[in-house]
């Protein structure tokens, strides 16, 4: 693979990955188990498929104590979501009920599919948007302990059948806006179906999904729907969205991973509207499950990793690692090959420097439905997938699932970044051995010790926390950004560090991967570099700030300059 920068060298190899992951779920006091929803009996035959999402995890510091907390969603009526407060001693306590964000899975309201955190009112406290197969819910963080449901006042009470949402400040007015993806159409109530024609009208080019929505933050706690004016109302069964300034024009763009369809890139035209651009994404239509952004080859640009489906003998859609060449050729180039291309039925993924060597690893959650080990639905899937759209979209014509598995019992993948030598899966070697049906993956330094821990929300199964233990010889640096002219959460801010021959960019996400959100603080591994020449911060407001020679091996808090 030819890159426009010299070959990136990585100090690790498969035999010596330079880190281990230890399952610390129980020790941390995290006992969250996700439950899948049940729906109208009319679609009982395909319910395992339709109900195979909803396990999510997002990271925030909701009480502002400096320790990242975790929010998990459940998806069955009566089952609570969990807000795990980080006690700072390696353990967590579930405070969701006391905070008022637990009992959100109720008949008539829908079931949770995920949550994203962002300080929409710039009061210094992280607020929460919960998206459901059902109504959206916006919770204002009142005092770092309690939340108030402000959905109605905000103008966000909308039935959306959503699998994802991201905060972004698309018009750079300093107020966080909201982009919500929709999977099933909004006129579908999965508990009271009037038709079974609810599925995709194509195996690869489906366009009959729900309509994504962009809500503009007007200030004063109110939002308005600007989807049509902005031109971002895709109906392509979007499963995940991520936002960053891909083409370097200073305005955040939106990247969509669409199930049963090609990815989409909406370029932001100065905050006025978005333009759907092909950028090379149209060349292959797959089943995008998640999209995560990261500087895969230390070029100082944000690349996109989109997960897809592979199953031996039946389908090799292959994951996409799209190198960002928007500044030159205005395209993304897919360079995924070998191990990284085929993870199985891949879901959430995140870039993170797990060994602190200065190059991003990739953690990928896998597996769709683990049921009867001796019965696979793939043969049945291969029959209905070939049907014309009218048959395919009717859930009643799908062969019944029964107790079959569909790409079940697949291990997570941990891809070690070896630079030009490629990526290699070291999951077993480093200790990521679970066979759960992984969905959401989030990364956070939960103990403030310079290591990127991995939290995985599994479908209908227990969540897992992997503590990361990187090579202690490697250095690191982390940044916590506080916006002033920009949104207070600094969502959309990018940091580029330069340390000798090491150059790497990261962005603060307002939602990333599948149904997940990473720690707001940006962590960089430095390998054996003992100093950082400079850190360049590009704030969403347009302000560029340069920090010369920041201290390493610590978290640095930076507030955006007023002018």
């Amino acid at each position, binding site marked *: 693979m030819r890159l426009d920068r010299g070959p990136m060298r990585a100090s690790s190899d498969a035999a010596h990955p330079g880190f281990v992951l230890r399952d610390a779920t129980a020790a941390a006091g995290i006992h969250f188990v996700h439950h899948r929803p049940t729906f109208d009996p009319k679609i009982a035959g395909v319910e395992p498929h339709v109900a195979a999402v909803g396990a999510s995890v997002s990271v925030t510091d909701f009480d502002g104590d400096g320790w990242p907390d975790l929010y998990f969603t459940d998806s069955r009526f009566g089952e609570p979501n969990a807000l795990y407060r980080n006690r700072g001693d390696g353990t967590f306590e579930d405070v969701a009920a006391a905070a008022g964000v637990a009992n959100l899975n109720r008949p008539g309201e829908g079931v949770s599919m995920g949550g994203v955190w962002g300080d929409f009112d710039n009061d210094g406290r992280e607020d929460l948007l919960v998206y459901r197969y059902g109504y959206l819910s916006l919770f204002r963080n009142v005092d770092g302990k309690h939340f108030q449901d402000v959905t109605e006042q905000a103008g966000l009470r909308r039935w959306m059948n959503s699998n994802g949402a991201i905060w972004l400040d698309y018009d750079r007015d300093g107020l966080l806006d909201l982009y919500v993806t929709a999977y099933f159409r909004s006129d579908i109530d999965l508990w009271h179906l009037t038709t079974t024609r609810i599925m995709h*009208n*194509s*195996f*690869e*080019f489906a366009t009959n999904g729900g309509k994504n929505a962009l809500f503009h933050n007007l200030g004063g706690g109110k939002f308005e729907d600007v989807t049509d004016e902005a031109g971002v109302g895709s109906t392509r069964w979007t499963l995940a969205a991520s936002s960053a300034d891909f083409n370097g024009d200073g305005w955040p763009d939106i990247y969509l991973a669409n199930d049963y369809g*090609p990815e989409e890139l909406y370029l932001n035209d100065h905050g006025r509207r978005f333009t759907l651009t092909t950028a090379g994404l*149209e*060349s*292959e*239509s797959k089943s995008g499950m998640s999209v995560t952004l990261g500087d895969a080859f230390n070029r100082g640009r944000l690349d996109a990793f989109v997960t897809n489906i*592979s*199953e*031996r*003998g*039946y*389908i*090799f*859609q*292959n994951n996409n690692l799209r190198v960002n060449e928007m500044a030159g050729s205005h395209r993304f180039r*897919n360079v*995924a*090959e*070998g*191990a*990284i*291309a*085929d993870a199985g039925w891949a879901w959430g993924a995140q870039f993170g420097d797990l060994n602190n060597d200065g190059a991003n690893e990739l953690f990928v959650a896998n597996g769709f439905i683990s049921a009867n080990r*001796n*019965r696979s639905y*793939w*043969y*049945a899937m*291969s*029959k*209905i*997938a*070939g*049907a*014309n*759209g*009218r*048959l*395919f979209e009717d859930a*009643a*014509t*799908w*062969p019944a699932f029964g107790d079959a598995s569909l790409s079940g019992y697949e291990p997570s993948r941990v891809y070690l970044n070896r630079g030009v030598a490629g990526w290699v899966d070291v999951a077993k070697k480093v200790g990521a051995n679970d066979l759960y049906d992984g969905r959401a993956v989030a990364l956070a330094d939960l103990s403030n010790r310079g290591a990127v821990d991995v939290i995985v929300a599994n479908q209908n199964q227990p969540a897992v926390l992997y503590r990361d233990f990187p090579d202690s010889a490697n250095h690191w640096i982390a940044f916590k950004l506080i916006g002033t002219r920009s949104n207070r959460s600094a969502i959309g801010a990018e940091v580029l560090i330069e340390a000798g021959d090491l150059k790497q960019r990261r962005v603060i996400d307002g939602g990333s991967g599948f149904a997940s959100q990473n720690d707001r603080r940006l962590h960089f591994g430095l390998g054996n570099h003992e100093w950082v020449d400079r850190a360049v911060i590009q704030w969403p407001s347009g302000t560029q700030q340069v920090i010369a020679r920041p201290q390493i091996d610590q978290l640095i808090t930076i507030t955006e300059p007023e002018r």
Partner: protein
Amino acid sequence: MADASRTTVAEGNALSRAWQRSSKIDPRYLIAFLITLVLVAAQLRYHMLGSYDRLVLALVVCTGTEAVLSWFDRGKFVNLLSAYISGISLTLLTKPQGGALWPFALGGFLAISSKYVLKYHENHLWNPTNFAISALLLAAPDKVSVLSHQFGNDVTTNLVIWIFGLIIAARVGVLHITLTYVLSFLILNGGRALALGQPLLPEIAPITGPMYQLFVFFMITDPRTVVRGRRRQIVVAILIAIMEMLIRFASDQGWPLPTAFNAAPAFLALAIVGPIAKWLDLRRLAARK
């Protein structure tokens, strides 16, 4: 009114003349035209190829292997149209893991060399593409899958290809094979669905997909590997459909078949029945001489 009648008659004559003229065209050109049409439609509308390098590689390997082996085997270069058809079929039908290119090179070589190695009475027994894909699927299901694209599950595109396909099949004189197989597929798998108490539509749905279009227009009708005689061809088409139905029945029952059988029952059915039928036919013809 009289003018209109004359125009209609004139148009009818023109069509008739065109139909007669087409009978003088080498059938391979018509088949090559059809598969090129499928390729272009698939790529322009659905970006079905994935990448052009795999197409170039498959074509180069197929035509190159054909040229070299024909020179060694027959002392002359043969017409490369057949290799061209194999190369395109292989590209459309093979979906490798991780965008690997080797399956196109190996598949192309297997397809063409099978014509020169697996022979009986100077005739090859397997349709080259069928042999290559079946071999790849059986040997390396971890690395290779068959076509997963479905032409957007779009009726219009499928109809265009079916119409062109049926016209060309009629012109080439193999329409009875195509129709027999399709009819047999519908009856046998409809019956299977009823017998097993399964919904009918998913069982007959695969026939509408592009994998089956390539199968019915390019594989089971391959002039070099079908048996001689219209009646025998019909019988063999039915036998292939029966074999496929049996494979599908086994898959329904969850019998431990190699993945290739579950993923591509039609290809495996042809790979089993086709060469046996051809071998018996060649033996019969040899005995008559």
